[in-house]
């Protein structure tokens, strides 16, 4: 009965999606492992970028799910499952973090006891920046996220068969707990994995910076998949321009938000010009990194800003697909720009490894999505907000 209302008939995704995912993942896994034996340090850094991409899309998507519940939004209900599926990588994070944890010595300067012994600054930070506390934080945070992922998605899926409205209530409460927790844990994660690569540097806005990029990329992934699925007829055909427009507007908003945060971080450091802060940006302005910085300003803010400004851009499926792919690539570049200059301090060094890991991670995301899409409905057919979500009009 519910399925009829939404006009949704469950269809299997085409089989070659699983094939593409497997091939990508296998290529990433094999070449990545090979690369690790050739250049272990470079491979660790390269993999860290890819891993952070997985983290940011995963938790960004879970944040979007929680936000929908908390804000009582109904427009996004017809495709909330897409975000749920994207966040299903969260329970796996701890496994994919293992290679990094085993290579902490190559990644994090502060793990070298002899370096810390000579360095008053690092000694001061040692109560926080030490290997055992780091691992505890990682386990606790990934565990918490997994817990919330598990509860939120279990309730959401439970509704498919029962249509029980209390589950929505329960998820609203869970979201209310998750979002403040998410603010803290996402900040800690970004500080631990990215900012502490340069343990002398500090920026209090760093967590927000990471959050803005993370939600931006999650929205792009959501938009891309929604447009693709809708076009191929896997989602309800009643998803219309107004849904697209809202997705586009959110991407636009987070483009501005990222620009605002990135600029705030830059301007305060530029203005005060304190050597202990400004060196981080100077590193990213020498030896070829300056081109990355310029491309980042253009590709992460100016181009998407212009591309998403007008109404047609936010409703035209082709443009939406293009800009979503653009955003995902740029988010990867952003993480790359945060990470890599800490390895190649004096200047950019090319390595084929940097292309291997993103392919593997992409394959992984596709695989996980496909498995979920096989098992569960692509539309939350039992959600009481679904009807209103499908009826959604803007003006």
């Amino acid at each position: 009965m519910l399925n009829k209302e939404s006009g949704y008939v469950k269809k299997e995704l085409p089989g070659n999606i699983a094939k593409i995912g497997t091939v990508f993942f296998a290529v990433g896994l094999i070449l990545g492992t090979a690369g690790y034996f050739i250049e272990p340090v470079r491979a660790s850094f390269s993999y860290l970028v890819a891993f952070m991409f997985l983290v940011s899309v995963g938790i960004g998507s879970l944040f979007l799910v929680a936000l929908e519940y908390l804000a009582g939004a109904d427009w996004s209900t017809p495709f909330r499952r897409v975000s749920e599926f994207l966040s299903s990588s969260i329970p796996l994070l701890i496994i994919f973090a293992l290679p990094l944890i085993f290579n902490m010595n190559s990644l994090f300067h502060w793990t070298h006891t002899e370096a810390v012994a000579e360095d008053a600054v690092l000694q001061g930070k040692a109560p926080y920046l030490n290997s055992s506390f780091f691992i505890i934080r990682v386990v606790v945070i990934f565990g918490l996220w997994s817990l919330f992922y598990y509860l939120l998605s279990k309730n959401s899926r439970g509704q498919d068969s029962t249509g029980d409205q209390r589950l929505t209530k329960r998820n609203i409460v869970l979201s209310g707990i998750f979002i403040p927790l998410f603010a803290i844990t996402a900040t800690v994660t970004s500080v631990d994995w990215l900012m502490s690569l340069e343990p002398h540097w500090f920026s209090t806005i760093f967590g927000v910076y990471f959050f803005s990029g993370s939600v931006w990329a999650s929205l792009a992934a959501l938009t891309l998949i929604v447009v693709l699925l809708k076009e191929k007829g896997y989602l309800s055909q009643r998803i219309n321009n107004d849904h697209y427009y809202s997705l586009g507007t959110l991407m636009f908003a987070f483009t501005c938000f990222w620009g605002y945060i990135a600029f705030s971080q830059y301007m305060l450091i530029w203005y005060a010009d304190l050597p202990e802060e400004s060196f981080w940006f100077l590193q990213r302005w020498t030896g070829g990194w300056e081109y990355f910085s310029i491309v980042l300003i253009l590709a992460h803010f100016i181009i998407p800003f212009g591309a998403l400004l007008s109404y047609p851009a936010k409703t035209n499926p082709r443009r939406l697909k293009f800009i979503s792919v653009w955003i995902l690539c740029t988010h990867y570049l952003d993480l790359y720009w945060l990470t890599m200059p800490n390895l190649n301090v004096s200047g950019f060094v090319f390595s084929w490894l940097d292309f291997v890991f993103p392919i593997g991670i992409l394959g992984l995301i596709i695989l996980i999505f496909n498995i979920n899409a096989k098992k569960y409905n692509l539309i939350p057919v039992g959600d009481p907000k679904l009807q209103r979500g499908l009826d959604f009009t803007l003006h």
Partner: protein
Amino acid sequence: MNENKNLYGVTALFDSANEIIHAAKEVEKAGYKNFDVNTPYPVHGMDRAMGLKRSTVGFFTLFFGFSGTAFILLFAYWTMSVNYPMVIGGKPFFALPSFIPVTFETTVLLGGIATVVGILAVFFNLPSNNHPLHDTDYMCSVSNDKYGIVIEAEDPKFNENEVTELLKRLGAKKIHTVMNPGKESFPIFEGRFVVFLILVVLVVCGGTYFTLNKVLYLEPFDWMLEQDKLIPQEKSTIFTDNKGMRTTIEGTVARGYLPYPFKGQTIPTETLANPLLPTKKVLEFGKGKFLTFCSPCHGNYADGDSRLHGQFPNPPTLHSARAREFGDGMIYHIIVNGQNTMPSYETQTTSEERWAIINYIRALQRAKNAKPTDLQEVQKELGVNVK
């Protein structure tokens, strides 16, 4: 066709959002163009029901927003780099990052204000703010809990009876005819209103002045002003001589500030020799120091064209025969001692900086008084044809 010249239109009230959407659809289908819908809140799907095209207001906003961007960037450039250039925090005169916040704000502000004013101007037909629907029962109802539609008499298809019939058929609860207001009056220009405006301006200005200059210095607000710290030029109770600013111990020599042996002489009998060679590096260094310390009065090229707009007597050009014949030591002497109205720059510059400045002044002098032989040398050095 409309026979009654004074008729503005026919209004109808409905009870629910669904009814008004249906009514709007039907009125549009019936071929009416000049009709409008008034609801207590934005009803989703109304644009489509009324057959409205996308509004072009966005372009208006965009245009004014970008005007704001352009205006404020030019304004910042003119004030900060042309009219009153000042070195702030060692940043360049045109320090773009520090202008970004104000650029953003002006963009948003101008875009926003222009849009609101533009919309008001168009809707209210300013300066008149009289709309026939103002103060009607209809307006009171639709700004409370009813949903209204009005078909204007200007519509080419308008016929009072037909329109009333149509609205009745659609299930309207109340149908009224609305007349145009008889006399055009502009309440904005009424004496009472103008006086009221002036009063508002006076109260706001006075209140702001009073708050910022008086209230904020009253008891609980002035806490930040009371600080247990030494304020320059103020007396201190800590030291027996009550001087807040301490002098250095007798005989202290600061790094880079070697004492000058001929200090205080007006016409020095002896001067120092320049220890620095005019290498590229020294000239670059001297240029920076000259631009910082000397150029505000002497001008960027030592022409004596100060940037101080008469707040300080203009110095003479340093390209005069007199200044060119000064030995390096003499200019050094002037920097340390000052000369007549020119103050001493002893405490601001180290001796190395002074010599570098002098080398740079020499380069300027040579450039302003270049001889043909100089040109030939440049040609040789650069391998180009300089005219």
